[in-house]
């Protein structure tokens, strides 16, 4: 369902069809860079589309500009800086790594490490129990009983 809400919004911009350009590139490298750039830069006018997929007038202009800059032997970072100077960080689908975005880029890794540490802590705690199993088992005799029943059934 959610996807077609997206469509309603696409439709409202009248850009719900593929944007197809017919640029001729000097070499394959430029063509590949063009594809990467228009895929990773966001169309400022559209709701959530990259330059490649959008048919909005501004997206066409920006593609044209990128094509011209590539033709003029400008580097990717020059092109990106050019866009950011005019439209702000909003156009970057790959947010810059800076203090403002530190949580965004590092958060998942911190969480992953924290999660794995918790697992290690848990397993250490539980594998120790092997030696003093009886006392921990006694905690919940009723549950053990029903659990045992389940296990027995599965073995059958």
């Amino acid at each position, binding site marked *: *369902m959610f996807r077609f809400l997206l469509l309603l919004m696409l439709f409202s911009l009248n850009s719900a069809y*593929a944007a197809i350009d017919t640029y001729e590139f000097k070499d394959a490298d430029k063509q590949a860079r063009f594809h990467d750039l228009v895929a990773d830069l966001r169309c400022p006018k559209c709701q959530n589309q990259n330059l490649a997929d959008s048919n909005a007038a501004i997206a066409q202009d920006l593609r044209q500009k990128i094509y011209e800059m590539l033709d003029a032997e400008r580097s990717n970072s020059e092109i990106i800086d050019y866009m950011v100077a005019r439209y702000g960080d909003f156009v970057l*689908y790959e947010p810059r790594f800076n203090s403002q975005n530190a949580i965004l880029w590092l958060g998942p890794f911190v*969480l992953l490490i924290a999660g794995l540490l*918790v697992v290690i802590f848990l397993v250490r705690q539980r594998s120790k*129990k092997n030696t003093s199993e009886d006392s921990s088992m006694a905690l919940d005799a009723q549950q053990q009983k029903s659990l045992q029943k389940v296990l027995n059934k599965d073995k059958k």
Partner: protein
Amino acid sequence: MIPELGEFALILALGFSVILAIVPLYGAASLKTLWMEYAKPLAKAQFTFMLISFICLGYAFAQDDFSVQYVANHSNSQLPMQFKISAVWGGHEGSLLLWALILSGWTLAVSLFSKGLPLDMLARVLGVMGIIATGFISFLLWTSSPFLRYLPRYPTDGADLNPLLQDFGLIVHPPLLYMGYVGFSVAFAFAIAALLSGRLDAAWARWSRPWTNIAWAFLGAGITLGSWWAYYELGWGGWWFWDPVENASLMPWLVGTALMHSLAVTEKRGVFKSWTLLLAIFAFSLSLLGTFLVRSGVLTSVHAFASDPERGFFILVLLVLTIGGSLTLYAFKAPNVKSESSFGWLSREMLLLVNNVFLVVMAVTVLLGTLYPLLIDALGAGKISVGPPYFNALFVPIMGLMVICLGLSTAARWRDTSIENVKQQLMLPAMASLAIGVIFPFIYGDGFNIRVFIGMSLSLWIITTVAQEFKGKFRTSSSVVGKLKQLSPSYYGMMLAHIGVAVTAIGITLVSIYSEERDMRLAPGEVIELADYQFKFLGTKPVKGANYVADQATIEISLDGEKVVSLHPEKRRYNVKRSMMTEAAIDPGLFRDLYVALGEPLADGAWAVRVHYKPYVRWLWLGGLLMALGGILTVFDRRYRKNAKQQGVAHA
């Protein structure tokens, strides 16, 4: 008259859901059997009136009743009948009505298929679902009624359904997805019931598992279908855009995956109870959060759809009440029991726990990326975007780690496994998958490719370890057929789902690396070469559809001079909305798709044309379907029917 009847049925359904939210829960708290027994008939009554309400709206669409605002805005007399029906869920109000109908359907299903469930448990579960239904039906009636009229003067014809929605995929996609989202409400209700009653045993996990698995399967099938639809309908050849609306469906799916595995451990070994409860709450909470994100307009992807801030506020209140309430209950009543049983470093428990960590971190990554622009904006620090480069950079490596863990877990047993055992079982799969991973890019592509190597090795690692484990099942058995019959449906389901992960991973790897694409100006008679295929453009001709006119191109594709197929992409203009749409033409195949889309007409009968060569793209969705099928299969396990009954009796 009929729309008023629909509105009235909706009001009655609200009445029943309010009673359902109060009476059985009160009965369970005060041990009044009679009160608890009201749960089942109330669930039936609620469903009946939701269904009547839904049929009334469907009838209004079928009859072209444009005095109903919602019908006038989403249909047209020219629209083919099947799309008039699917237009019922083509906008905010009707889709919400479908949401509530499916919720009451799940409530009914729980009341019907719960013969072994103790009465107090059933009363609590249905009561909790009644609370959720109360929230959503109120939302419908107060802010989003689909039955409002244009009176006294109404339009003679409707504004038409968005042409992009006039498609088979979009008839089936929303109901499937909703079955998944809303299905997690059952696991959620079981978790809340467990917290309320304090009973959290293996039986509880056993009751929750089939509901969780089936909701997860629906959600997965819905996501898969959505991805496939975007691929053939949007004309960009993409299959996943990391758009907030897609992320909203991926997050509950990831957490639901974690929940399924954690429930398995809780059932078999009685551990991770608090964690399992939390996941059950999270899975449904993320479904609700997705609803908020999509309908409130806080994220760019959806803003044009929800112009009404009142709606956003209403859902936010619902979110606070349901999620906030359940997390508060969790904080006070979640079991704080120390471990009941022990497990070692190479136990299946530990590997499933690690898998849970990966899945949850993946879900959090998606959540963080989706909400980060909002957080930054709310702090007044400007507008930023988070898009595919971010998600791919973080999501893919974590997924790789998870896949390694998946293979390991096939060799591990409950409690503990010896290292020698694991080594012995996994050495061969490891060597085989690494070897094929190295060789594959040489044979298929034009030389070594590290990304293909990693992707293929990981996918093969799943397949080989699953196969190895399956083979191990026959070591002690003399009769192969006998053993095949003896293995449970849930075992086959698990295998199928894991193979599905591998198939999807192969698809993702190969289509992202070996895809080729060209945009060209083509005059009639001109040819493009792509991936050894020749695409010859033969010109366009006008065609006329039911409610559109189109330019239809003919493109003849040949391989080494031999004709493969003729494709007919179209550029359509829909009569009512006057909107243009590209209808891509695809020659599908198990190992490659050829994909052609028309752009703009240029001078002299030439057109801008885009052609794609998409290797193994079908594997993406094939894997998704295998996973869903696996999820469904587990439900047919005999023990869910027989043992649940005995367990129930034992506790009653």
